[in-house]
């Protein structure tokens, strides 16, 4: 075990990129769970994976292929007015088949496909960090506005539409933000790790948090703690980062059992 590795300058960009994504993803995960679309993470992550594998085949940077693929299907979903997990199940199937077929077609694509499965955070560069910073800015400044509308549209459907507010545009804007962030996370930490960070903290916070603000805080905190533990474990024990992070998050899942059953109704 070499503790000096943790402070190696080579790991700084990957560390801060992952940290940013670990803070952003569970917040998006809460809104996706609210809409009953928790499968979005896996759907967009697979599409991003497919985009990443296809990118070098058509001469496009991997990150652009991954993010572009996610953005395209998010737009298509918005235009077709599709809601619910069914669409994301289709995204998983499309992404998975394209990813593996692409990997079979070229050795380079095969390596990218493997990286998307392993989640080798340490190999990402400043391009990922800059994109994560831009997405972080969008979430910090845009989500407070979007949050109110997303919650209201879910709990009081048609209220905003009856008052002429562009509900559909806001919904597509959120889908795009989610698709691009998940795409970035899938290429940085792997498809399954991106899914776990989006799904597990939001799932636990939904059961435990006393209110919506607490849910945001709890989900982000859990995710960051899990990320730090996963990062340290992966570096110190020379493990692939993605599975290490997923394993830590799985250890958090018994927290859901702390919730009181609904029998204690007021």
């Amino acid at each position, binding site marked *: 075990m070499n503790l000096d590795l943790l402070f190696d300058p080579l790991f700084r960009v990957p560390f801060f990129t992952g940290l940013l994504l670990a803070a952003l993803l569970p917040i998006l995960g809460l809104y996706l769970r609210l809409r009953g679309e928790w499968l979005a993470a896996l759907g967009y992550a697979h599409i991003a994976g497919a985009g990443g594998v296809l990118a070098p085949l058509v001469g496009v940077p991997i990150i652009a292929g991954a993010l572009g693929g996610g953005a395209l299907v998010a737009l298509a979903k918005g235009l077709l007015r599709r809601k619910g997990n069914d669409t994301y199940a289709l995204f998983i199937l499309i992404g998975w088949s394209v990813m593996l077929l692409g990997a079979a077609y070229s050795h380079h694509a095969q390596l990218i496909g493997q990286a998307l499965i392993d989640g080798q955070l340490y190999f990402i560069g400043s391009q990922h960090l800059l994109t994560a910073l831009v997405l972080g800015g969008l979430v910090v400044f845009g989500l407070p506005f979007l949050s109110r509308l997303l*919650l209201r549209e879910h*709990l009081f459907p048609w209220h905003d539409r009856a008052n002429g507010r562009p509900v559909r545009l806001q919904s597509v804007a959120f889908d795009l933000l989610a698709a691009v962030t998940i795409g970035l996370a899938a290429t940085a930490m792997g498809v399954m790790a991106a899914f776990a960070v989006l799904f597990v903290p939001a799932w636990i916070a939904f059961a435990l948090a*006393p209110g919506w603000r607490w849910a945001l805080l709890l989900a982000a905190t859990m995710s960051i703690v899990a990320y730090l533990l996963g990062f340290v474990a992966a570096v110190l024990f020379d493990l692939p980062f993605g599975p290490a992070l997923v394993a830590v998050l799985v250890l958090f899942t018994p927290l859901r059992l702390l919730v009181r059953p609904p029998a204690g109704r007021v």
Partner: protein
Amino acid sequence: MLSAKPGPSENDLVLLKVEGLVAGYAEPVVGPFSFTVGENEIVGLAGPNGSGKSTLLRALVGAARRFRGSIERAASLQLAYQSQHGNRPEELPLKARELVRLMDGDAAALPPRLQALSDVRLDRLSGGQRQLFYVWAALSNPAPLVLLDEPTNNLDPKGVALLEQRLLDLEPGRAAVVVSHESEFYGEYVAE
């Protein structure tokens, strides 16, 4: 259709004018229907289940299709709409007071019965308590016209009384359209 108490004066503005409205989804379900709603008026739409009352309300907000007739709203009129079949998630970490604030209402102005429950998560309230908060949140919205679809669903007599009083205390200039299959609900405050 039942019209209102305390009743509009001649100087009150017409907020909503519906003429010959036929509404539905793939096919017409209800109509033709004509009525107006003025300031300080509460209009009740009564009828048995399946008679198309909710469809009529949904047509007013654009959620159902208008086949014939017209719907005229006062210029820049804002609505508050509480639908009968809104999403009521099994699990949701949202305090009751957060629901009221979501509709731009003042959670501090809740009556004592609701104030006592305002820090409880919605999914940990009983069906009636939850319904009362949804209706209250819609009424707390500052929009001049409030549309309520079956607001008395799951409410106990005390809840119904609280809702009736809230409708009677509606701020000056505001109006409501209330859909209910319980015609006795209208007896307390709406004149036929």
